[in-house]
């Protein structure tokens, strides 16, 4: 044995492994902290701070303390902060490059918190529009003539569209009408058929000849019948094409007038969008909390999958096989997350967080339920989501009762500032996601509302006064589009009320000019619609002619030579009777 083994070498190897193990044990926490910070900074593109990381062997787990992730768009703020993240893991799954977490606990999770010092940004993000860019209605009165001259009008466009469509359809209708048989030809057929009916045909040959003539006439009649049907169909299609354009032209002057009037009073688009600009950010923030599961977690899970694919090509290639273990690459079986919201703690519970739901056959479920607290009367949020071959699918509902809104600045423009003094929010809604597409709606009701609005501008005073008088507001929410870039639309009657208030402040001179201008628009529209309607009247007359012809043709087509045939049959019968009578005894 001595000649084969080198005991010193074996001991050296043991010492080497033991040293390695000791070093790992000593520096594992530091290594984990550095690796975590490096990985998160790579994903976040901004400074990430972790106070310390601790591990435990039995059960195997890791705890992360004081995690703060800088918001790359606003380095003075943490996008996410957590006091403690603790996870117990399956170490054997780690060997298979899988993250199987039996229990994840996150305490003190808070979004958008101020940082102690400005965080470094490694990958700057494009700044999104903020309320300060909101285009408020112009304060200075506009020159009404130049405003009307620059206004993109619907009426001329609608008139041109109708004219073009009418001319095109008129050519087709006229061609079809000219293809109709003339009256003399129908009369000629009638005379020929009458002659055939009245002819005293005696021999079977003569009857057959008459029948042949009738068949020829019917063939020609059928051709004409087809031409009539084609004409009627052409007219129907032409009417169908013309009708919506005619209706659009009739409605266009009214719309142009409303637009001009609103613009004369201010910026109609801006006013009607005021709800979004005033409450959009706050509502969007609330929506982002509500959609945290799908809006934040799902893309994160998805990107981790993509990163694995992208990272698999260096020297050589990593090949993935069908995983017989049926364990997802990332699987957090149970998670409890305490979210700090409005200085209160909201507990949320999660099950089966993964992006490979087909492997576990269950969706990711989440719920957040909170009873009465100083900040709210009740919060109930629950839902689920799952990735499949068709994309993300899921659903969720939320019901928030009596949420006390903190005082907050809503709009800070050089000409108008608004702030929420006090408010009570009730929100409810539901959302479904099918094949990555959102379909949801909800309501934000503010039964108690108090606002402050300041402006130096005389014209904007109307808006400021209206806002200060608001005591309640109902805002509708509509969610659509891809879940990764959701379209969030808000609706309320606030914009309409404010636009109406501004329009009512128009001077009599401007009103008079607008009325004159509207009359001109109406005249232009009536000229084109009148010409079109006159043409349609002619088509109607042609249709009547066509109907009459069709009736005549249909009647002629029903003609049979039964009389002549019957006459010959009777003659034959009489002859037979005579013959039989002679032969009788």
């Amino acid at each position, binding site marked *: 044995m001595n*000649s084969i*083994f080198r005991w010193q070498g074996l001991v050296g*190897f043991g010492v080497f492994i033991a040293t390695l193990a000791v070093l790992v044990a000593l520096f594992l926490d530091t290594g984990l902290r550095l690796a975590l910070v490096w990985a998160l900074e790579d994903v976040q593109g901004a400074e990430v701070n972790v106070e310390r990381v601790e591990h435990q062997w039995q059960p195997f787990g890791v705890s992360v303390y004081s995690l703060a992730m800088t918001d790359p768009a606003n380095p003075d703020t943490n996008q996410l902060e957590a006091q403690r993240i603790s996870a117990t893991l399956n170490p054997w799954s780690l*060997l298979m490059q899988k993250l199987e977490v039996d229990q994840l606990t996150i305490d003190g999770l808070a979004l958008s918190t101020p940082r102690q010092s400005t965080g470094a940004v490694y990958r700057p993000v494009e700044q999104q529009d903020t309320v300060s860019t909101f285009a408020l209605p112009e304060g200075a009165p506009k020159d009404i003539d130049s405003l009307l001259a620059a206004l993109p009008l619907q009426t001329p466009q609608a008139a041109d569209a109708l004219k073009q469509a009418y001319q095109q359809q008129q050519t087709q209708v006229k061609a079809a009408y000219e293809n109709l048989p003339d009256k003399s030809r129908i009369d000629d057929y009638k005379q020929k058929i009458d002659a055939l009916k009245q002819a005293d045909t005696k021999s079977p040959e003569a009857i057959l000849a008459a029948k042949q003539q009738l068949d020829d006439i019917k063939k020609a009649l059928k051709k004409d019948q087809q031409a009539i049907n084609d004409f009627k169909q052409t007219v129907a299609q032409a009417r169908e094409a013309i009708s919506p354009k005619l209706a659009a032209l009739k409605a266009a002057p009214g719309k142009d007038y409303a637009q001009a009037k609103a613009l004369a009073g201010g910026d109609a688009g801006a006013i009607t969008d005021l709800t979004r600009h005033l409450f959009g950010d706050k509502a969007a923030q609330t929506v982002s909390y509500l959609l945290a599961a799908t809006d934040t977690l799902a893309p994160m899970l998805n990107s981790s999958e993509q990163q694995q694919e992208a990272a698999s090509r260096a*020297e*050589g290639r990593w*090949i993935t096989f069908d*995983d017989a273990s049926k364990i997802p690459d990332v699987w957090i079986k149970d998670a409890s997350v305490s979210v700090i919201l409005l200085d209160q703690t909201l507990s949320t519970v999660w099950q089966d967080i993964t992006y490979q739901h087909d492997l576990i056959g269950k969706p990711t479920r989440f719920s957040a339920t909170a009873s009465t607290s100083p900040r709210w009367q009740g919060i109930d949020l629950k839902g689920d989501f799952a990735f499949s071959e068709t994309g993300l699918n899921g659903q969720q509902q939320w019901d928030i009762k009596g949420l006390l809104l903190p005082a907050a600045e809503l709009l800070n423009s050089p000409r108008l500032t608004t702030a929420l003094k006090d408010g009570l929010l009730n929100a409810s809604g539901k959302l479904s996601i099918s094949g990555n597409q959102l379909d949801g709606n909800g309501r934000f009701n503010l039964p108690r509302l108090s606002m402050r609005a300041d402006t130096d501008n005389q014209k904007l005073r109307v808006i400021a006064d209206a806002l200060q008088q608001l005591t309640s507001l109902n805002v509708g929410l509509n969610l659509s589009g891809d879940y990764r870039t959701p379209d969030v639309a808000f609706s309320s009657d606030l914009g309409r009320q404010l636009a109406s208030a501004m329009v009512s402040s128009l001077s009599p001179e401007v009103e008079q000019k607008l009325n004159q201008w509207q009359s001109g628009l109406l005249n232009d529209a009536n000229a084109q619609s009148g010409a079109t309607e006159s043409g349609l009247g002619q088509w109607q007359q042609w249709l009547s002619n066509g109907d009459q012809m069709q009736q005549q043709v249909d009647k002629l087509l029903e003609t049979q030579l039964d009389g002549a045939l019957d006459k010959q049959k009777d003659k034959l019968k009489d002859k037979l009777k005579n013959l039989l009578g002679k032969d009788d005894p």
Partner: protein
Amino acid sequence: MALLARLLKALHSANSPWQLALGFALGMLLGLTPLWRPHNLLVLLVVLATRVNLSMFLLGWALFSLLAVGLDPVSVALGEGLLAAPALQGLWEALYATGIGRLSQFNHTLTLGSLVLGLVLFLPIAVISKVFIVRYRQHMQRWADRFFLVQWLKTSRAFKLFQTMRGES
């Protein structure tokens, strides 16, 4: 120079030809495959725990690490072919589903290809090395001892340093 000194020292040592040849073949295995792979820990264990010649092991490692630069495409192609072979899919899938399998990083084309290439070449390299060493010792050792360069190397600091080391046995 150091490599040459290492080679001469090993060839002229009292170690058996098999000790030298196996050391060289194990060095080849380590040199051909990517260094930071778990199987290399096993190679290291064998090298340290058995009386193979360490100089020849280091020589084999250095030489085949250089050769691996040119052989890597062959290894990748071999690994690619093995991992894609329909007949072996069951084996790979079963291995992929185990922790040991994942830890071995067998599903990396270069790792598998170079390991298989190294294992296939192991015996031929060991046998050829052994034959070469035997032939060298029979026919060339006495002549080489007289050669000026060997004399010079034997008196050089490097050689003396090697003489003081006891790594070979």
